[in-house]
């Protein structure tokens, strides 16, 4: 819109804003990727710990 802030921004600032937008998008993706990996690792570790617990129970029952 004529007269709006976007219209009056100097080209260097406008270019910086565009770069910031790009960075934000990349940050989102990075956050999603890190969240997925740590989330999967947490879930898998929890399940493996639980299974190890059941394996110990099996060993104990076998030796009773």
């Amino acid at each position, binding site marked *: 819109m004529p007269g709006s802030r976007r219209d009056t921004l100097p080209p260097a600032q406008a270019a910086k804003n565009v770069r910031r937008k790009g960075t934000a998008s990349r940050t989102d993706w990075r956050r999603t990727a890190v969240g997925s990996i740590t989330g999967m690792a947490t879930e898998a570790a929890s399940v493996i710990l639980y*299974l190890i617990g059941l394996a110990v129970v*099996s060993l104990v029952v076998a030796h009773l």
Partner: protein
Amino acid sequence: MTGAFADQTGPHLRKAREKRPIGTLFVITYYAGIVLRWVAVIMVIPALVSALSGEWSVVPDFLIGAGVALVGGSTLVLLCRTAPSRVYWSQGMLTVAVSWLLSMIVCAVPSWLSGHYLSFVDACFDVMSGFTTTGLVLIQDLDHVSDGLNTWRHLLSYLGGQGMIVLALSFLAHGFPGLYTLYVGEGKDERLLPSMWRTARAIWFISVVYLLVGTGAFAVATRQAGLSAYRGLLHAFWLFMSAWSTGGFAPQSQSILFYHSRIVEAVALVVFVLGSLNFGLHYAVWSGNRREVTRNLEIRSFLVTSAILTLISLAALKVSGVYSTGEVLFRKGVFHLLSAHTTTGFMTIYPSMLVVSWPALAMFCVVLAQLLGGSASSTAGGFKGVRVGIAAKTVVHELRRLLLPESAVVVTRFHFFRDHVLGDRQARAALLVIFLYTVTVSVTAVANLAAGYPLQESLFEAASVTGNVGLTAGLTSASMPLGLKLHYILVMWSGRLEFMAVLVLVGYLIHRRRLPQ
């Protein structure tokens, strides 16, 4: 609206559509048509796998199936002419119930054309078993099935587990009005994000990321078990889809026993336990809320019930002398108990051995585990952990009310993604579904007994089919009576949809003009 719902009519027609409420039959027809079109697209995947494996004689089966789905779906959409502007709860439920049945018939076409089924009903049975992530099969000569058909069977399980109607509509019909009603109709009720469309995408993002990682893990395991690289990758793909969706289909008739591999069994255990968890929990943990793992009522309920049942069944197996070492007790006893509890249905022993060798107490524990099931809003069946947890809390709540003075205010809290105060409505809803499951198991057991099967096997199979588990005591076979096959199809279908959608359909058929909106 965009995609398939793009309104191509003029403004006058759009206005007329908004004023005129579209009848229930039109709503069902329209959305079922869209789902069938989507089924046609999905059939391209097994056709491609067949082509990659050089099975050119199998490709036409899927092309014919895709053609039937496309023509059928397009006809239904054309019959309705315009997209509904609003979908009521009952209409959403009906759409899910009918779409599953129509999809079953269409998806059975390529299976039937493969020549591995004695009848079209048998093909329908296997497709419904796949959709509902049950895993019981009537297929003939499973060990010599084409790669394309194996991909198709496992793909049905994978899609059915995530919720195929929601998948179809969320991707093909972004922004359509009644997605949440269909989501609930398909047995899921945990909205991960404010928008249903985003919720469906989040579910699929989690599933696809796990598909890549899990297939990789299975590929290493199957390679170690002695399969060639290509065959190992195919088996890994199939096994992951089956394990993640807690489906229980396997590419070989001996199920997981075929591989004789500790690593395959270990990977399968981890994947199917992960698959039985609530998508809301996956989302919470992936978003950084790791404390939810220890606080969630459903996880606590699963830990308690599975630990108690495992301990009892292991003790029974040890006392009876069936398995003596700790490793065998784990690989046979714990594996089957968890396979039942997560409603997966993978087996590492022959079904006949389960009946002949296992003591009655261990069998009973497996039956109970099959009924308890996995988590709500997951791919698993059964009562679901949250309902078991709420039922247990309700019992404790009532006991406290009886023991404390009348003037005491008894408040029971639980944590399920957020803190809740136990109310009558939650207790009633949980107990109603548990009651309906119990009635269905009883009716199915009576049907099995009427067909002449022994009591123990009848109860076991009834729990397996109702809980969408897939473990078998040997009853389910192509030689079982036709009436029982049809009954099993109905039970798998209603059990997976948690009865509500099916009950609404029955109500609609009886009181068609009085459908509550």
